């Protein structure tokens, strides 16, 4: 798994945006991850605790919002959620399907502490 590389990127993105906003400290990082991205939350949290030490992000809480993998059948119009592995349309057994959600993979926002008065 590539959780280490992913966590490094999250730290870089969060730190960059925090400095730009004049943060003293980052308290929370909000992530949005689709179910189709094969990332294990616990591993990211583990690497995060180690990597963020001594940075502006030290001690920040990671929040994972998981978006379900939703598919739509292009033949009969049924929408359905993937249970984890790939399945055919549960209604017509067709394989003509499209991904609606589940590919999300982003840092959505961060929560920071600022010196009072710097907030414009």
């Amino acid at each position, binding site marked *: *798994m*590539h959780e*280490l*590389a*992913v966590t490094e*990127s*999250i730290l*870089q*993105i*969060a730190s960059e*945006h*925090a400095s730009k*906003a004049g*943060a*003293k400290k980052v*308290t929370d990082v909000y*992530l949005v991850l689709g179910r*189709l*991205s*094969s990332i294990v939350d616990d591993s990211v949290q583990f690497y995060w605790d180690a990597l963020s030490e001594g940075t502006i992000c030290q001690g920040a809480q990671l929040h994972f919002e998981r978006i379900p993998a939703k598919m739509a059948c292009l033949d009969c119009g049924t929408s359905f959620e993937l249970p984890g*592995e*790939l399945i*055919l349309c549960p209604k017509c057994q067709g*394989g*003509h*399907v499209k*991904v609606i959600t589940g590919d999300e*993979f*982003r*840092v*959505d*926002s*961060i*929560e*920071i*502490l*600022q*010196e*009072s008065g710097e*907030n414009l």
Partner: protein
Amino acid sequence: MNTLRVPVVEKILNANDQLAEQNRRRLDQAGTFGINLMASPGAGKTSVILQTIRRLAGSTRIGVIEGDTAPVTIDADRVISAGMPAVQINTGGDCHLDAVMIANGLNQIAVDQLDLIIVENVGNLICPAAFQLGTHTNVLIASIPEGDDKPYKYPNIYRGIDVLILNKIDLLPYVRFDMDYFRKGVEILNPGVKVFPVSCASGEGFDPWLDWLRAKLSKE
């Protein structure tokens, strides 16, 4: 002190994607076509590369970037023995190649003198799918002994490919492999993707793959 929520909305692998863009521009400037070759360990990545080199050697200058998790040069040595330049990239245990490693690889090979660069990614069906390299096309090798259920178990890698090479078809008489079931999974994930069944052992099936490749090279 006050608390403030700052919107970010940035793709996590944005930095990698941007470097991949730079790699792509570099290949384009050199007029070199780039392939990202992915597969599970032992599916036949190096075998397909060697067959391809053997058959195109007269007309095409091919370089290979070999990604391995350990500092071994077995695969790179085979390419060099076949008469083409190769660089070995040691990922230091990482499960995939990324755009930084490819940028380093491109520094070690005479890109300008090549028509084609094949990147042999680390043997893995999960992680390489997430990292763009800047190559022009993603090729996946599946092989008969891996089983017919792989598209269902590793959907992400099947979704992002342009070409699927199905290797080791010489083993079909000996291994239970439901071709219809396999093809249906591929079709769900990647409708209309090019599929080339081949055997590196017998050489069967290579012509359609090479025709496809030649057509790409003549455009580049």
